[in-house]
């Protein structure tokens, strides 16, 4: 009697384990050097980085997104999704309550450990430079199971960028224009190692900031006056105030009004290393072609 | 500065109060006080702690608002005097003036503030008054030293010099001898006598030490219920106001024309005969 019961229990256990879904996902190493066990076909994805949101949608998986961070605003479908906080203040409660299969994060966000405690799968990707775009597209494509679409996207981006760069260099006679990119009226500048600095370099422009100052140095304003850039990239609000800064009315770019300002939506494409990088670069190239001497 | 040592009272009091009431919040300290202080007389205010000596002086000096009643300075209501004129006529010495980094002569010079105001420069008359005051108080040698480097006695003398430099006809002093050694207490008492008798100033001081207070011309004795009496020292002794005020027999003796308080401390007994009865008197 006991033995028969034990056999029945054993058979039940086997049947049950067969009925349980087998984990067919993959293990991938993310940019925090963690080995992440990813689900096979994640259907509920949350992206906490605007550029990663854009990549997911560019790969045609926008429907799988259930929430984004508050700064993700492209495309319109992503903009309409519920928001779960920002970079520093991601709302962990909200994230957990949405029961996601996967959360895409930036490498430097702090919530990764917290999420791990709750058993939520998170994948961290670096999103700072141009090279990171290709890497992120490939990784996300693999996770979503659309690896060949991802490589096609990468090729398209690479080709568009190359074309724009070549066109810009062809139109150039001699050295590119010297450019000062202002990120903040403090003034904080964008150096050559920042994303926008990289794009500028591809367009053949010369950044007045040198690479040893870092990606976003806080400059002494007199530095800009001394370097006398030919073009200044600046926010629209500050563009009108430049001449009032002491000594700046002497700068060539200010005197000859060679300023490049972009509206917020265009600006997003320039500062986010994402699939719209070619768009951003085109906007920059157009402006440079227009105002550079 | 006319001589005023005749026994008859001058026509009007230098300082007077009518039906004065003062208190803190719900607590009434004194009420219905009517007093008159005349030029050339030194009045001492005595009484136990909490009887309102300080409060009375503060109110008379215009530093506290009374609950009701009116104060008259030289016949005119205190509040009606313009601020600086009032300061020229009524000088005040606080019980514990603050310690400061100023030099002694700067402190004394502050006494002349009411005479010149914000934009005034020091003039000869100011220098003369300061010099007189510092000579009278013996603080000339401290002239350029910082107040914080002086001893307690020297500091008090400098403050007295400041008060004298005002050359006001009315002087109010709150415990001017409280932190001084006996010789300095003596000096202060002598100074007050001279100001009243010699310079015709109306001096009112709150003094803790009974023997010093009894050297004054007039006494105001305050008790827990209010003013127990106001009059000459002889009147005070005859009616034994002091015992009523302190609620315990106060023994005053006269010695060569000077009144002294004699504390009733029994002499040391031989061992084994110690008495603990507090009211045992010899």
């Amino acid at each position, binding site marked *: 009697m006991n033995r028969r019961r034990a056999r029945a229990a054993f058979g039940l256990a086997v049947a049950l384990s067969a009925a349980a879904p087998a984990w067919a996902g993959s293990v991938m190493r993310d940019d925090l050097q963690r080995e992440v066990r990813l689900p096979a076909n994640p259907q509920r994805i949350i992206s906490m980085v605007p550029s990663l949101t854009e990549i997911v949608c560019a790969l045609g998986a926008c429907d799988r997104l259930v929430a984004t961070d508050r700064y993700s605003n492209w495309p319109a479908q992503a903009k309409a999704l519920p928001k779960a906080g920002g970079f520093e203040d991601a709302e962990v409660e909200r994230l957990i309550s949405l029961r996601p299969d996967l959360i895409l994060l930036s490498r430097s966000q702090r919530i990764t450990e917290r999420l791990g405690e709750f058993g939520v799968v998170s994948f961290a990707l670096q999103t700072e430079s141009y090279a990171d775009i290709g890497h992120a597209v490939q990784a996300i494509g693999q996770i979503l199971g659309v690896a060949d679409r991802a490589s096609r996207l990468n090729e398209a981006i690479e080709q568009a960028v190359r074309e724009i760069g070549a066109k810009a260099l062809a139109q150039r006679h001699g050295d590119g224009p010297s450019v000062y990119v202002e990120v903040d009226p403090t003034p904080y500048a964008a150096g050559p190692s920042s994303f926008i600095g990289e794009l500028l370099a591809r367009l053949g422009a010369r950044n007045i900031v040198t690479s040893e100052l870092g990606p976003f140095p806080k400059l002494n304003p007199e530095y800009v006056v001394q370097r006398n850039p030919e073009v200044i990239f600046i926010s629209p609000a500050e563009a009108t105030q430049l001449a009032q800064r002491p000594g700046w009315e*002497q700068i060539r770019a200010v005197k000859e009004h060679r300023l490049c300002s972009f509206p917020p939506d265009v600006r997003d494409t320039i500062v986010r290393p994402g699939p719209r990088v070619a768009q951003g670069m085109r906007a920059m190239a157009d402006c440079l072609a227009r105002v550079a001497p | 500065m006319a001589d005023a040592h005749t026994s008859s009272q001058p026509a009007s009091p230098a300082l007077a109060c009518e039906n004065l009431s003062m208190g803190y919040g719900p607590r009434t300290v004194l009420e219905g006080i009517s007093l008159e202080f005349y030029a050339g007389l030194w009045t001492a205010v005595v009484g136990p702690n909490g009887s309102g000596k300080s409060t009375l002086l503060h109110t008379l000096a215009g530093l506290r608002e009374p609950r009701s009643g009116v104060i008259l300075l030289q016949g005119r209501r205190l509040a009606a005097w313009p601020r600086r004129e009032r*300061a020229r006529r*009524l000088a005040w010495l606080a019980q514990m003036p603050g310690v400061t980094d100023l030099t002694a002569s700067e*402190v004394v010079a502050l006494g002349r503030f009411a005479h010149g105001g914000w934009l005034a420069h020091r003039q000869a008359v100011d220098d003369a008054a300061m010099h007189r005051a510092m000579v009278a108080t013996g603080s000339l040698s401290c*002239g350029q030293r910082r107040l914080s480097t002086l001893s307690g006695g020297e500091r008090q003398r400098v403050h007295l010099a400041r008060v004298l430099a005002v050359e006001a006809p009315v002087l109010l002093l709150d415990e001017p001898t409280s932190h001084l050694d006996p010789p300095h207490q003596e000096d202060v008492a002598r100074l007050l006598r001279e100001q009243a008798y010699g310079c015709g100033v109306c001096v009112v001081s709150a003094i803790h030490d009974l023997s010093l207070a009894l050297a004054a011309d007039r006494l105001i004795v305050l008790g827990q219920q209010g003013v127990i009496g106001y009059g000459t020292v002889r009147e005070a002794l005859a009616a034994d106001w002091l015992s009523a005020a302190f609620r315990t027999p106060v023994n005053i003796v006269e010695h060569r024309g000077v009144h002294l308080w004699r504390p009733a401390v029994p002499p040391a007994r031989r061992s084994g005969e110690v008495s603990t009865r507090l009211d045992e008197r010899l």
Partner: protein
Amino acid sequence: MSTPQPAVAQLDSAHNGADRLTRLGTWLACCLTITLLLTCGSLIVGTSSIETSLGWLLSPDAQSAVVLWEIRLPRTVGAWFAGALLGLSGAIAQGVFRNPLAEPYLLGTASGAALGVTLSLLAASASVGALAWAEKLGVTGAACLGACAAIALTVGLSRGVLQTASLLLSGIVVAFLLSAVTSLLLLTKPDIWREMQTFLLGSTAFVSWSSVTLLAIVFCVCAVPALLLARGLDALTLGEDTAQSLGLSLPMLRLTLLGVVSLGTATAVGQVGIVGFVGLVAPHLVRETLSVNHRQLLIGAALCGGALLQAADLLCRWIIRPAELPVGAVTACVGGVYLTVLLWRRSRDG
């Protein structure tokens, strides 16, 4: 009563008096020399090397002239005036509140200015009309207005300037309150945080000749009544009752002096952001080296504060050139070190 020989006493006092005056004179001369040296130093320190700058001084061309006379000189002169305003305000605040820890921001000026700047930055992205307003006012105007509003709130909360204790407490309350409001507002739009941080840490980067003119005018407007009323501060050290009995109008004194502190601090904060420690340390430096009455203390604190901020401006441009440190961070370091040394010396002397 002992009366020492008057003649000898007079001689003594005269000798001491002369001694004191010479010490004060030496101190003033020192301060002015340091200021001059710092000004010259500021002309040659910047993003270019010292040799280049010296070369410019000797044989200037158009662009270097701009750098020297339109950027470096107004910056250092403006820093001096702002520092002088802060030092003066700090000395007055310490006198009025009779507290050596008082400093110019204790009426809530710093938090009010920060709130003003936050509102102006937020308004810039709110609507076109608000943007136009914000541009006209500028960050400096907004900071100044915010500071004045905070002071009005403090004085209103403590129901006038009569009670220094309640004024101090109100200042603390207002500072905390406005800080909280600023933080909440920043949450709604975190991208202005970087610009706010610049303001909060102080910056002399864009001080122009027009800023210098404004600072100079305000300094004169503040210094005159302050020096006239300095004697009142002397009287206050003897106690409030004593000061009142001497014929001073305490409400008038407090109102005027706090008005001077408010105007001076609000203007300085508007031009250079929130620079800490200068207003606290300058009067202490004067008092440690000299024994002075308040008129001399106010002058000394102004000169000292000016030199301090000038030195901080020079350092912040020099240390990581061509990048720049926030000037408030430098003053905080210097001030912190000085106060630590002061504390250590006090505890050692027991």
